[in-house]
């Protein structure tokens, strides 16, 4: 079943076309990866889907309904939540308060939201840090908090913007496990990632952007053989990494 469908989406900033007539869709329950060189428009696409930017052309359908004119909070209520590339923890609140705010998306009562938050913290392995202030967390912990907070809103579609950046190999392995567990709960995941090994092993399918245009979609195996992709993006770097 098609959960999210993007049709002819275009976004211009002055003379720069950041996203140009992009079409793709996400099926329920899959992990879709998105790659592309710096400035390819990946994060802009996330901003468009979650309502932080308004698109200039095109449509976004979530479960068959147009969402491209909605505000971020309305889109979150519909069931799409995102994380930010540059994490935005609530610095002067505790980890538990941070995640409780996410959980309040689905319940109005603070007590039951706190309960959901505790479960989410357990799931993401942040339980021990629950009374710490956001400002006292390390980078990997902040990434986890960002993820936990988004999860607590009970999304159907979770957009992860480079949650692995800045992590060490062991932490990356843990994060991959966590994302698989999230999918195991029936949540569809759309993930931007720069680390090739991660995106290749994690994704069911991959979308490749370059200069704001979609140049390929397919399974990781197909993508890694696609001449356009190798030429435009993977090129030398990929060959280098394989060695």
């Amino acid at each position, binding site marked *: 079943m098609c959960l999210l469908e993007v049709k002819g989406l275009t976004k211009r900033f002055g003379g720069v076309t950041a996203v140009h007539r992009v079409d793709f869709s996400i099926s329920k329950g899959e992990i879709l990866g998105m790659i592309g060189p710096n400035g390819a428009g990946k994060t802009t696409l996330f901003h468009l889907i*979650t309502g*932080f930017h308004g698109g200039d052309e095109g449509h976004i359908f979530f479960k068959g309904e147009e969402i491209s004119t909605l*505000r*971020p*909070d*309305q889109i*979150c*209520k519909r069931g799409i*939540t*995102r*994380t*930010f590339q540059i994490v*935005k*923890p*609530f*610095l*002067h*609140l505790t980890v538990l*308060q941070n995640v*409780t*705010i*996410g959980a*309040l*998306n689905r319940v*109005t*009562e*603070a007590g039951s*939201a706190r309960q959901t938050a505790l479960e989410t913290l357990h799931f993401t392995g942040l339980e021990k840090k629950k009374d710490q202030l*956001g400002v006292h967390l390390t980078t990997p912990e902040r990434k986890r908090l960002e993820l936990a*907070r*988004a999860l607590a*809103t009970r999304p159907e579609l979770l957009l992860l913007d480079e949650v692995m950046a800045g992590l060490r190999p062991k932490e990356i392995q843990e994060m991959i496990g966590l994302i698989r567990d999230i999918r195991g709960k029936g949540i569809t995941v759309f993930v931007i990632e720069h680390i090739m090994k991660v995106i290749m092993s994690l994704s069911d399918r991959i979308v490749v952007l370059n200069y704001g245009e979609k140049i390929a979609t397919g399974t990781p195996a197909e993508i890694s053989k696609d001449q356009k992709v190798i030429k435009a993006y993977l090129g030398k770097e990929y060959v280098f990494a394989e060695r």
Partner: protein
Amino acid sequence: MNFGGRFLAFSLLGLFASVVIPPFLDAYYLHILISILFWGYLGSCWNILGGYAGQFSFGHAAFFGVGAYASSLLFVDAGISPWIGMVVGAVLALLLGLFIGYLCFRYGLKGPYFALSMLACAQMLQIIAVNWKAVKGALGVLIPLGDSFLNFTFKNRLPYYYIILAMMIGILILTKWLQEKRLGYYFFAIREDEDAAKALGINIQKYKMIAMALSSFTTALGGTFYAQYYYYIDPSLSFGGPVSIDILLRPIVGGPGTVFGPLVGSLLLSPLSEITRSLFRQYSGLHQMIFGAILIATVIFLPRGIMGLIQDVGLRVRTNKEKVEPHVPA
């Protein structure tokens, strides 16, 4: 006894003392207590918008003045009880708050821009009040002396004390209540990071407006109290810049975004202001210089106010205790 229990015992003791002791105090000390509660109350009203929701208003005198003028004019010109005028003023201030709030938040004015818009609003109202005959211009409004509960005028200071005490308790309960609710969590989220708040499903425009409504309504009630206590208001006493500063100073020094911060700040600053005012009568304005110095020191050394300091010490004590307890592997 755990921390919560001890805290409850302390507050009950404080409440008991603040009800029982004042009848035995002379007028001057009673005035200082009233001053503490009055500024603590106004600070708490500001705190909902400025401390909790993080929308730093530099012009709360606008709401204060609307409350003071509405009840006073209704009383003096139409003979309507200030108790009714108090509510009318609060509703007017709420409408004013929603109006400015809509303009500011709709166009995303944040931080210093919002603060200055609020300041401009208060200044405009002051100029209007000075020049508008119908509100008695620069002369101000004189409340007739009297001694009747219905007219909110008393010969003795004690009734004023109990009224402002009740208002203080009311705002403390309101603040505590919203802190425990979704509303409080959402205010904090907006204060900390608006984009993250939006991404988590918070309609930030709506919640800023709610904070504004609560804050403007309650601030105006304080305006009526002021008019009835001092029997006199004029444009600068109601809408002036110093009033706005006096309102926000207590919560900032005491601890913005905490239930008791404004009261703690007021416990420190209000007696200081009263004492310097009576000790150095010939140097009027000296207390404002002292306030300025305290404000600078607070911003540099205690950015989260006195309550922030207390919380940090509490946290350190608790984490030390945890370290001492031996870790038993499961």
